[in-house]
């Protein structure tokens, strides 16, 4: 695994200590911050490859930090205390990935790998009028999408089965974004097949 410089920001010190150690054991370099001002300060002091950020971090709203990270093109993973929902996925400032408490350490590490890999490889997938740019995490060069949304739409393009229960919020937000972009494809449930990308005539 690549050695990454990770900025880990959470108001819970125990969380910081444990995950700092875990990520370091995996070979990463970890910088810790326990509130919003510290995050901004640490970001100024040194470059980070990726930021893992508590969504409700005190002192500076997560949204402001995320939009700053977006503009400086540093990927960010948000830790949510609630379940992911379409409100979050359709908000203006979007993280590159979301993870909900409680999670297993391996889930977080997997997410770090996926996000940084996508960013680094910058793969572009084109299907009919849909274009996914993994370097910028954008759909058709316009709307931002999350790591999970990219996974879902790529799976759909490859006609793979997707777990509808886990993917439901992403399917819903992707459909919403495709509508916003006036694309002709939509994600629909096809009987006996599962979720598929289909051309919508409605």
């Amino acid at each position: 695994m690549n050695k990454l410089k990770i900025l880990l920001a959470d108001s819970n010190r125990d969380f910081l200590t444990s995950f700092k150690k875990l990520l370091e054991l995996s070979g990463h370099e970890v910088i810790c911050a326990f509130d919003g001002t510290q995050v901004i300060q640490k970001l100024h002091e040194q470059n980070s490859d990726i930021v893992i950020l508590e969504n409700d971090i005190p002192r500076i709203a997560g949204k402001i930090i995320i939009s700053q990270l977006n503009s400086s093109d540093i990927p960010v993973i948000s830790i949510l205390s609630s379940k992911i929902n379409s409100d979050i996925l359709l908000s203006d400032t979007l993280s590159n990935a979301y993870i909900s408490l409680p999670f297993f350490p391996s889930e977080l590490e997997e997410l770090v790998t996926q996000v940084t890999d996508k960013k680094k490889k910058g793969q572009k997938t084109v299907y009919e009028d849909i274009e996914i740019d993994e370097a910028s995490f954008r759909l058709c060069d316009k709307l931002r999408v999350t790591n999970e949304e990219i996974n879902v739409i790529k799976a759909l393009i490859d006609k793979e089965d997707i777990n509808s229960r886990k993917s439901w919020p992403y399917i819903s937000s992707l459909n919403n974004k495709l509508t916003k972009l006036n694309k002709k494809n939509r994600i629909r449930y096809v009987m006996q097949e599962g979720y598929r990308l289909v051309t919508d005539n409605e």
Partner: protein
Amino acid sequence: MNKARKKFIIYAECAIFVLLTLLLSVINVVNFTMVSEDADRITEIIASKKGTFEHDAPAEPNTNRQQFGKNKGTFEFMGPDSPELKASTRYFTFSFNEEGKAKKIAFNISAVTEEEAESWARSLINQSTGWTNVNYRYRVYEIKDKTYVTVIDQGRELLPSYRILLISIVGGAVLLGLSLIILIFVGKKLFKPLEESDRKQKQFIANAERDFKMPLTIINANTELLEKEHGQSEQTKIINKQIRKMTALVKDLSVLSISDDKNIPVAKINISDLINRLIDHNRPKFQDKNIELTTNIEDDILLGGNEEIIRKALIELIDNSLKYSVSKANFELKRSKDRIQIRQINDTTLPNGSADQVFDRFTILSNAEGANNAGLGLSYVKDAVSAHNGRCRAKVSDGNFILQIDL
């Protein structure tokens, strides 16, 4: 106001209304009947005296005052058998022969003239007995080929009855109002603990969701750290196993709580499509468990509601039948009148009548013991259905578990 409290107040008020109406009706009906009987007794006495008191011997003055009220029952000095009857009765009697010619037998009344009285009596010839002109009682009888009509004024006897009727109506209404106030007050006291416990349960779920998540994640991370530093051991394995169990429960909690937020977005959902899709998606799981899955879904039924909540509720419903069916599961969706009905039936090992508590939070029935669940699935279904003003019922009969939702 809480729904259960409202229901209680409405039911109790209805019960009070019915009982009060019954009581007051009986009192008034009996009272009026007795007044009628008294009046009939008087006309009977008059009839027995051939239509008039005129031929009576003058009443003997009561010389033995000792006797009065002592030896004779009190009631004999009241009503029709009172010695004052002759003097206090206002009445008139006319007799009519076969040609219809009238003859005045007695006339002791001030409210009408003799001519009016005669035509009044004539109009009653074909009757037998009853009330006329509100407070006059009449009796028609035959003596020696002649038809006698006696009409007595019972106004003074009727007045108290009408007063009682008025008091009954006004008093009843006041009592209903008072009972409503008392019920609202009592309902508040009575339901406060219940509402409080419901609120606390919800609060607990919300807290558990928030306060358990972070510690779980940290314990998780440190167990993994221990394993990485000192290698896996029996103990770390057990901790891991328990963490997994708890993580699943906490996730259950967070998924299965409907916020009290009133602004849940609502849209028209094609519930037929939704159910078909979800069942279709889960069909392989039913096959894996060798459960015969049958469906009877009416097409294109639309429901106004929140898709996310309805979807989750349906998933829980399907999950429930997947978990607890023995060999058969059936789903039905149909329109009945203006409501939408969803029925889920599966065979079960539960005994009859044991399904009352399935909708309670944290309730796990005997066939689900030991399963990794918090007993929240069907309580979520119920919450979701009541959030859409629907109704849930469940029963076990002859080895079948039947769950019915009316939306």
